[in-house]
């Protein structure tokens, strides 16, 4: 009863492309869960499986203790979804779309909350369909989702196209949802947003989950950046395990250290005498970049060879060969 979303070993192929390659995702009830990954890594595909729009080739997916494919309608009444690219009907005004989506979900909307959200998002509900800009179309879908009574919100890159002020409004709304005990799955590649909003994070690449946990846990698994001014040049640094990117100029040291090896480094530094010390946990940005630095510039799917070097069993190139 405590998990809202439980996905394991999800595989989905489109022709020769392996969009999901054994993806795992677990979201607890009442948490805001960040779903991070570069373009084309499989975030939207996962969400479409969860919504029962497409069927996975293999693996298990549970959503609110139901089967997303079989119990589709019953589950959909309990969730609200904001697509990453909102298209509206040309003849329908924004206000009509908001009401329609609420009625189609069938569990009612709060008129006061609707009016309040329209005001907060500064959205004119009388404009029609495609006369809205991209950001305003996004707002129509967001208002429809936030004024619903859904237990679970599935938001697929919801802030693409929103200006910074509106992003702030959006963050406020998500925080309120969390206070009300609702579950939010927030797919994004805007790291500051995820860092500010999410309790737990899953990072995926090439259709696989590569990291999952709270931000603190993820930081623990990675490196801390250390800058120190020492009394004398340190000795024995070469023998220390878990040390990276060492820049030593006389008594000035800058390095990265695996967080669970921090003790050893500090001992070596105090031996030399510490004048000043700055240690900073990695930002999500650094976590993210570290996960992807092996695959520079291009999306993982586009660079199967590079991915293969890092994790042969996860390489889409190899998978495609198996599939063909």
């Amino acid at each position, binding site marked *: 009863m405590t998990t809202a979303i439980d996905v394991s070993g999800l595989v989905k192929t489109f022709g020769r492309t392996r969009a999901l390659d054994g993806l795992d995702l677990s979201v607890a009830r009442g948490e805001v869960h960040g779903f991070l990954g570069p373009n084309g890594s499989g975030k939207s595909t996962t969400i479409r499986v969860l919504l029962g729009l497409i069927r996975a080739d293999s693996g298990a997916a549970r959503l609110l203790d139901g089967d997303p494919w079989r119990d589709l309608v019953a589950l959909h009444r309990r969730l609200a979804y904001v697509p990453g690219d909102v298209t509206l009907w040309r003849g329908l005004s924004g206000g*009509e779309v908001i009401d329609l989506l609420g009625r189609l979900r069938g569990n009612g909307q709060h008129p006061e909350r609707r009016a309040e959200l329209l005001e907060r998002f500064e959205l004119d509900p009388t404009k029609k369909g495609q006369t809205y800009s991209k950001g305003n179309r996004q707002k129509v*879908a967001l208002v429809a989702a936030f004024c619903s009574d859904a237990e679970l919100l599935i938001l697929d890159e919801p802030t693409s196209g929103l200006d910074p002020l509106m992003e702030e409004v959006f963050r406020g709304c998500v925080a309120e949802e969390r206070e009300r005990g609702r579950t939010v799955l927030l797919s994004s590649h805007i790291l500051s947003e995820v860092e500010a909003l999410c309790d737990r994070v899953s990072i995926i690449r090439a259709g696989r989950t590569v990291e999952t946990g709270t931000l603190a846990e993820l930081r623990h698994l990675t490196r801390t950046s250390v800058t120190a001014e020492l009394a004398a040049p340190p000795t024995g640094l070469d023998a220390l395990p878990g040390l990276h990117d060492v820049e030593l100029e006389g008594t000035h040291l800058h390095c990265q250290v695996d967080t669970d090896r921090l003790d050893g480094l500090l001992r070596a530094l105090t031996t030399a005498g510490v004048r000043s010390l700055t240690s900073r946990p990695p930002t999500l940005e650094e976590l993210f970049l570290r996960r992807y630095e092996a695959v520079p510039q291009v999306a993982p799917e586009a660079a199967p060879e590079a991915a293969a070097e890092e994790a042969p069993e996860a390489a889409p190139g190899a998978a495609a060969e198996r599939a063909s």
Partner: protein
Amino acid sequence: MNLAGASTLLRFALRRDRIMLACWLYALIGSVAGTAVSFGKLYPSQSSREQLAQSINSNGSLRALYGSVYDTGSTGALTAWRMLGLGGLLLGLLCVLLVVRHTRAEEESGRLELIGAGAVGRGAPLAAGIGAAVTASALVGGVNAVVLLAMGQQVAGSLVFGAALFGCGVCFAGVAAVAAQLTGTGRAANGIGGAVLGLAFLLRACGDAAGSTGPGWLVWLSPLGWAERVRPYDDNAWWLVALLIAAGGAQLALGYALAGRRDLGSGLLPQRPGPPSAAPSLRGTVGLAWRLQRGTLLGWAFGFAVGGAMLGGISQGVKQLISSSANVEQIVQRMGGSTGVVDSYLATSMNLLAMVAAVYAVQATLRLRGEETSGRAEPVLATGVGRLGWAGSHLLYPLLGSGALLLVGGLTAGLGAGVALGDTAGWTGKLLVGALVQLPAVWVFAAATVALFGLRPQWTAAAWSVLGVWLFIGYLGPALNAGQWLLDLTPFTHVPKLPGGSFHVAPLLWLTLISAALAGAGLAGLRRRDIG
């Protein structure tokens, strides 16, 4: 206006459309060539052609459909009489679709913004769309002229026939160039273009049906009328070809002027704001489908009311038929398949209405695929709506909407026939039955579309080709002496020919069963497949 990049865009447009264009060109050239060959066989002698001319010219309804036969001197003249109007209409339709597709539809999708940001002149997309239409027109006109020349027809007549077809294409490309500036959507621009085409056909038909005794001048209000009056192999009125091209050119100039005055993405017709909240009727998928489909349905219903009234109203002309040619009577017999000539004509008219209703049924069904590919289906299906409920709400329109269209068409045809022939109540009843009995055949087209949509979604648009082939066989097959086995493949062959024919319920049941099976297979496929 700056046209930089237009030639690149034109090549790109022709490349994108290469398959669609090839199909259209094949149909437009093949039908002219096929008609010419067939006429050569059916009316080999001067006297047989004169008999045909006499019987057509003395019959208002046939004059309305095809125009008057003006020259019996050659097979070429007969071919030009029969195919210039129809060919001009179809080529005009192709040109409207092409121009809108490469201008307003691209702009609506946002793709033109990407292109417009490049080193591309403001007028270049319009020029490319026009270029594609002119290229297609030149090919259709040119190849058809060559075909007729190769069949040994007069040089001047063959050339002016091709040129008149070309002129029709250019003229309606101009219509589309203006329409694309007025509206905000490709669909609405196509609607304006289609309405102008329909009006041009109606004016030409009414003028020809009225003949010298009535308002024959109506013909001169229609570009299709001008094309008809070019009279290849007889008058060879090049000045009318020049008039068609000049009319096209003037509209193109207007289109360019308008394009230079508006913003990218906007139309010149104003957009009104909508209501801030939804009316109680906008509820559930049925309410949504009604909102999305009602405008199209009402437009078609208006067309059916006018078309039905016209078809019924000219039925008195049929009475004057002089069946002096065994061949003509044979054709009429084959098309109507029954004894009374008026009955036969009206039964054919009801069949014609049903073919048009099939176009509506396919269009209304394809809306499902449009909703899916545009991404608008996704948020709907992510609410408490099942796939079958969603699809079913739209399928009400091919199922019942096409019935409503046949009802309207049959009703106004009956009233028109009643005014023309007397016994309004009797004719109205007969023609309502005659129209509605076609409904199961119309359903087969919609059901075939559903089957494609559910089982092979990426091929859904092929429904148009299925429809085109079936209609082509149904419309021209009987006149061209096609084999019965070929006609048997089309659903409309099996529908009772009413009024006049005998009513059998079995074929209607079969057609309904086939429709149900096709639609059922499609819906079963839809339940299993991926969306999007």
